[in-house]
């Protein structure tokens, strides 16, 4: 009887904490979505963080109004009696509008804002996490354990700096952190490169991440900044058709590559990054400029490879006319490929796992949410601009600018300027022009 009650008390203590921890750690998507049903028979399904366009009958004026904004709260209650709180902008300022479910005529999701959910009880209490994304003041009770050994998998595709960013790496890292140190994080790279500034952030993120987790790059295509990224991993595996290299830094406006001290610094930096990951620095340096050449000799008996930073080896990897881009066979020889895996199951074997298991589906959600937001913004921006240009009144123009603003909120300035080619430039400029337009409209009244 006494034993029974002790077990019961233990269960109450650890069981409850564990359940609370699991609940808080659950990604917001995992929580039930809400379905709102409107009087006219239409409905909307979604969650906090959704950017929506709502058409509703104003409870005071009785006039039909249209608003675009981010849902920050959906109250609980009986269907038909709930309300949404919409974060929106009015006269250039942030404003919150509460709209009753019964007043809504239609509601359409136009995007998804970045929602930062607390990752632990400590996070919730302290209101944030450390810069690396780790839980502050976490206790053993908050560390989750996976059902079976597995990985945290993140697809990392497209342009570096817009689609492929350090932000998503930090998000998957935060997810892995919930399960304690030494998790396996697989970054599946398929990118033709991108922005140098993002490369700096990736360097910081991955350098930190490697201190507590096993970072694996799975290379399908790692060109330029993506090759620099792959170099930071603890281990690199390749697809059969993988390719990696060509890290020449150049100004995309002028088409001129960097030179002089800047080039020397970049060569050194890539070499250092390679060495920190136990990769040969000559290989990394040869990816940067035609000035760096390299070759290797493979002992036919022992298979031992000697790499030279000149052309004295038997196999010329790159001479003074080209920069190095490795293929799978070369990468294996020079130690830039620890194994070839074309499927996740094949990769699992290389990683020492009996089977492929993703501890959570957070990586997929992080990827999907991010790429969907960009794809949508890319598709919509030219159409919004078309509508904007066809507008005959300032009110109309303002409405289209608001639509554009919601994409800025979902994607950020860089994506809106680089991927969507928004003519307004940064968000501040769009807001400034919206404000000016509002003043014009007000002055006419």
């Amino acid at each position, binding site marked *: 009887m006494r034993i029974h009650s002790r077990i019961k008390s233990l269960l109450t203590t650890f069981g409850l904490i564990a359940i609370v921890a699991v609940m808080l750690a659950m990604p917001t998507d995992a929580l039930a979505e809400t379905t709102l049903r409107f009087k006219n028979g239409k409905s909307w399904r979604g969650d906090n963080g959704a950017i929506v366009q709502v058409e509703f009958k104003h409870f005071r004026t009785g006039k039909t109004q249209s608003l675009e904004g981010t849902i920050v709260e959906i109250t609980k209650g009986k269907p038909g009696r709930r309300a949404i709180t919409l974060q929106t902008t009015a006269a250039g300022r942030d404003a919150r509008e509460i709209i009753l479910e019964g007043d809504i005529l239609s509601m359409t999701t136009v995007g998804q804002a970045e929602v930062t959910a607390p990752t632990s009880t400590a996070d919730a209490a302290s209101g944030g996490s450390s810069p690396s994304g780790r839980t502050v003041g976490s206790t053993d009770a908050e560390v989750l354990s996976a059902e079976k050994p597995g990985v945290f998998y993140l697809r990392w595709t497209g342009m570096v700096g817009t689609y492929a960013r350090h932000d998503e790496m930090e998000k998957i890292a935060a997810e892995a952190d919930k399960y304690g140190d030494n998790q396996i994080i697989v970054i599946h790279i398929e990118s033709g490169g991108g922005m140098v500034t993002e490369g700096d952030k990736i360097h910081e993120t991955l350098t930190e991440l490697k201190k507590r987790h096993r970072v694996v790059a799975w290379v399908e295509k790692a060109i330029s900044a993506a090759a620099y990224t792959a170099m930071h991993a603890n281990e690199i595996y390749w697809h059969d058709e993988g390719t990696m290299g060509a890290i020449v830094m150049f100004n995309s406006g002028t*088409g001129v590559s960097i030179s002089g001290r800047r080039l020397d610094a970049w060569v050194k930096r890539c070499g250092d990054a390679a060495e920190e990951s136990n990769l040969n620095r000559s290989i990394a340096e040869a990816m940067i400029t035609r000035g760096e050449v390299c070759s290797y000799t493979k002992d036919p008996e022992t298979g031992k490879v000697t790499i030279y930073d000149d052309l004295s080896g038997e196999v010329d990897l790159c001479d003074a006319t080209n920069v190095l881009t490795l293929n799978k066979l070369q990468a294996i020889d020079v130690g830039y490929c620890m194994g070839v895996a074309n499927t996740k199951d094949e990769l699992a074997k290389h990683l020492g796992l009996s089977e492929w298991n993703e501890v959570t589906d957070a990586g997929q959600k992080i990827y999907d949410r991010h790429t969907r937001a960009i794809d949508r913004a890319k598709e919509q921006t030219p159409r919004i601009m078309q509508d904007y240009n066809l507008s005959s009144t300032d009110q109309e123009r303002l409405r289209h600018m608001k639509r554009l603003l919601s994409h800025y909120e979902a994607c950020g300035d860089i994506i809106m300027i680089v991927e969507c080619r928004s003519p307004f430039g940064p968000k501040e400029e769009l807001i400034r022009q919206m404000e000016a337009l509002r003043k014009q409209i007000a002055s006419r009244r």
Partner: protein
Amino acid sequence: MPFTSLLAASLVMAPTSAPTGDVASETAKPVVYVIPMDGQMGTDIHPSIYETIIEDVQEVKPDVVVFKLNSADVDTIEHIQNDDRREAGMLGMFQEYEGMLKDIHTGLRKAGVDREDMVVWLDDGYGIGAILGFGFPKMFMTDSPDSRFGGLRVIQAFFAQNDADVQAKMEGAWMGTAEKFLMHGGREDLIPVLHAMVMPEKKLYAKFDGRDVVFSEDPNGAVWTLDSSTERVLNFDSDRAERVMLSEGSVENLEDLVFLLGHQDYEMNERGQEMFETYKERWRRAFEQCQGLLRDAAEQEREGGIKGMGRAMNTYKKVLGLARQYPAVETRLSRDFGVSVLQLEGKIKSIQKAIAESKRNGRGGSSRGRSGKSGRGGGLGG
């Protein structure tokens, strides 16, 4: 097909394919599934149709899959330049072709097709389409002087840069993408061949490792010199490709090809061919229709008035519908007429707006207000 090849093939293949009895020979008939890659790269040869066909392959589960490639940007008298440039392959979709090939291989793996039974048969591959000739484990060519494997120098267009380092970067990156086609096909041994076919400065030699030919840029130990020029790229005809053992053989027809694969008899599945032909015929008909519709729309716009504008709008909507239905139509509208889906949408919106404005102005200017025809079209002058 040369007699010696056939004879050699029959001698080599006979033991594996020899029937052990009547029943066995009937049940052992391999199913051969032919997938055409015929016409313009980027329109006729488009990822969307292969997605559909590969789904069918997964259902059929054939023993042998033959991709019959016939895609040439220029005819055999290149210097005359009499080819319709609108029919040249879309170079800008190079990465999409690589994705398409990747998906094809993934689909074939799922269908349980053995790599040894994936074959590309080059009827004619000249220009960007020739890259697909590298994409499968085995390659055959049509036994004809007009059967070509070449024209890949077009890939150089991706490298053109003023800055030497940037040019080297682009060359590395794009050749990396080109090499992916070979990797998908398990033909990394042909990387030096690809390089010699794209870049004039690359040379090509052949050596032997036992009975296997080894292609190399290194002349040491070379038995054959295939390309010693630093000014010209390398191209092949079927005869040359067979002589240097780049192709497995030159064939006159599918029977020859299947025979060289070691099968004396086979069962043909024609669904892939039918699907491809239907697709090609339909998008081309839709494209032709679009050309007429665009002319009509311009005419209707000139007619003016709400009626004319309304008719033009509906005509543009038809074009838009076809462009959305067939990516190939959208691609060709863009290349041939500079008309994109976005522009069509914009055109429709602007006409809608103009109609609405006309109606509004008409109503505003009419003493009879909203009722009656007199209120329509009044404000169209502008």
